[in-house]
């Protein structure tokens, strides 16, 4: 918990408040607690992380005790309790990615950003984190940045992605080797001809 967690003022923007109300309406009355997780996610998207004021705000919105929201927010690792950089680079280091070279990916990130796992660059642009299997083993190694998966990475493509992010561009998500979704890496192996 850092200082600002208690002092950062938090309110949903008008758009988000409307969205939040739509979410709350999905559940029967008296069961608004069910909306805790989507609302926390919405709050995190708005603020970039979850200051305590945001959790209190969500609790107040749902008329549930604050502690119930704290319990949920601290249980799941995808809720961020500390401020992070604008781009959250989550590097999978589980078995498939590890075998396909996630070490190289991590090294590239370290070299370019000069930070380690759990750290944020001084300009508050990048945070890198280690995650467990992201469920994209076929396209290993992968990195998740924000909501996007960047797949089939190697040192060069990782560097390109980070540099284009630095320039403020939006690099193309998905396979960096140009394959379609999870097709075989060496091109189709069956149904090669039309008949």
């Amino acid at each position, binding site marked *: 918990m850092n200082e600002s967690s*208690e002092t950062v*003022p938090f*309110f*949903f923007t008008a758009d988000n*408040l409307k969205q939040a*109300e739509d979410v709350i309406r999905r559940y029967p009355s008296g069961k608004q607690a069910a909306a805790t997780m989507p609302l926390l996610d919405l709050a995190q998207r708005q603020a970039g992380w979850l200051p*305590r*004021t945001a959790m*209190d*705000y969500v609790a*107040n*919105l749902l*008329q549930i*005790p*604050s*502690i*119930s929201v*704290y*319990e949920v927010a*601290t*249980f799941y690792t995808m809720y961020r309790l500390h401020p992070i950089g604008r781009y959250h680079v989550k590097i999978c280091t589980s078995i498939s990615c590890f075998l396909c070279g996630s070490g190289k990916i991590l090294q590239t990130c370290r070299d370019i950003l000069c930070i380690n796992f759990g750290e944020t660059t001084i300009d508050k642009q990048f945070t890198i984190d280690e995650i467990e299997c992201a469920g994209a083993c076929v396209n290993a190694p992968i990195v998740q940045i924000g909501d996007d998966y960047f797949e089939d990475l190697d040192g060069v493509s990782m560097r390109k992605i980070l540099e284009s992010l630095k320039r403020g561009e939006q690099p193309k998500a998905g396979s960096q080797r140009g394959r379609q979704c999870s097709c075989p890496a060496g091109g189709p192996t069956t149904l090669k001809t039309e008949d």
Partner: protein
Amino acid sequence: MPKLTIDGIAIEVEPGSTVLQACEQLEIEIPRFCYHEKLSIAGNCRMCLVEVSPGPQKPQASCALPVADGMVVKTDSPMVRKARRGVMELLLINHPLDCPICDQGGECDLQDQAMAYGGNSSRYHEEKRAVADKYLGPLIKSHMTRCIHCTRCIRFMTEIAGVHELGAVFRGEHMEITTYVGKALESELSGNLVDLCPVGALTSRPYAFTARPWELRTTESVDILDALGSAIRIDSRGAQVMRILPRMNEDINEEWISDKTRHACDGLLIRRLDTPYVRHDGKLQPVTWREALTAVAKRLKTLKPEQIAAIAGDLADCESMIALKDLMGSLGVVNIDCRQDGAALDTAVPAAYRFNTTIAGVDLADVILLIGTDPRREAAVLNARLRKRWLTGHVEIATIGTPVDLTYPAQSLGDGPAVLIELIEERHPFSQKLKMAKRPMLILGQGALARSDGMAVLGLVRRLAETANMIQEGWNGFNILHTAAARVGGLMLGFVPGQGGHGVTAILDQASRGTISFLYLLNADEVNLSTLDRTFVVYQGHHGDAGAKRADVILPGAAYTEKNALYVNTEGRVQNTKLAVFPPGHAREDWKIVRALSERMGRPLPYDTHADVRARLVAVDAAFATVGVTPAPAAWGVFGEATSFTESLPLRTCHENFYRTDPISRASSKMAECAEVQAELESIKKSIKKGHHLGQEREDD
């Protein structure tokens, strides 16, 4: 009813019970940490494992396993022993080996059960986890590294206390019990967490490092800091009360006590009157008993009966009240009163001033109407009972009076006495609900009666009880919630103005005008003594509080932990406090002081021993013969004034500050600290309310 076999013994139990409960019926000990019979079942400590067939060949948690017909349970098989030893080993992995410096040592469930069910050594050589301690307020000391995550504290706070502030944050090995925000628990029952915690994670802050359980002498007594008479256990060492713990009494407090009951005991050592005093030249001088009593007797002899008055306060015991009443009676004094807050309590019939439904009877009520009372502050344990009733469902709770936070939702019907008339005349929407109710009850607080038209309010509430069908065969839904332990006893003994006598308000008024020139205060500190410049005031009591400050003669008495005395709780239940330690210095048991005074005046009261006084009490009211039992239902009658109210002011609750209501709690530094923290929390709450106006808006649409 399902029949099962436990360790070869056949037993038939209520359907829906758990295997653990069935074992308890056979008095087979099942070790447990998370299971507590008053809390919901969590099933997370796994200590209560038993072997059950038919079923999978693995041990099962008996606390969460419902009984089934034909079950065969083994509680002491090799499999069970091995499983429990394994669970214990895992529980101890992160538990520090600091028993010698742990306050729970000697009364620790984990310690005891590790001895009984654990292995003989640890195979764990890795590092143990450490958890930062949490701030939970001035009464609870935390040492969270010792926590085994049984979650009893969370369940108690959420379910019984109704304060959703404790929770488990993070997960797995990183799980921590916390308020997350490091603020004091906002509950009058938080002290019970210390009893519930099976390890030394939550211990009592005031009692920290002062004594070991085996050094303490235990005395079973009752509490007198509110009018419930909760069962307590006084643990003392030498001449000092070290701590107060609850005892089980299903009829009153189940197994909880309020923080005031538990932690005001440090006030028993502070500001004590330990020697008689007489005021000479405006200053109180210590004197001998003989001198003090002579001073009082001399003054009394020069006065006419109508110049004399006596007031009994909130903590007076029945023995001293009957002795003082008899003494005043022998002098022909009729200006006596035990209702020092000026509450209009009618002694016409006992039902008029008792909690007739009984505290356990709350469990049966289906409509509960709270009138001018805040049970959370006036009787915290009763409030837990009301909350329990609310949790069971199918109950309507409504309040009349200034709004209060009760920890359960209650519909506010209005704040003035006009609502009572609307209800009597069935013009109020809530009347329908009262009509439908089978066992409606109302609780009338002292705040509603301590006003100039109190008698009229009492009369209105009586009529409401009658029209709303609260008085039935076998059910009396009319309840007065007292705040003083002495009150019902005083009313039973008739410590009220005699023919032509004055009540408290008139006594003080006459005294300020000089018509009454002698005032005897028996434990009475909460009366306005500021205008009594011309009155000779005798104060008998145990603390140097308001009464002693103004007194001309001080007669030092004994506190409730220092005497065997009778008190009557708000239900009319006669209970006995026990002597745990002796009164300090020259202080004496209260009835003996009055007896000695009567001797000095040449009008000795006709009782010399405690047994004689008790016999006199029984002669006044036969109920004093049966101590500790639920009183027989009181006959209904007409009481209160038939007139309408004259003030339209809201019906106010009477306690401004839960932690500082009587001389003992006002002397207690712990209670002072609690009151301070409470005030801080209130101000934080106000600022939070302001901060969340956006969320508030949503509610409005």
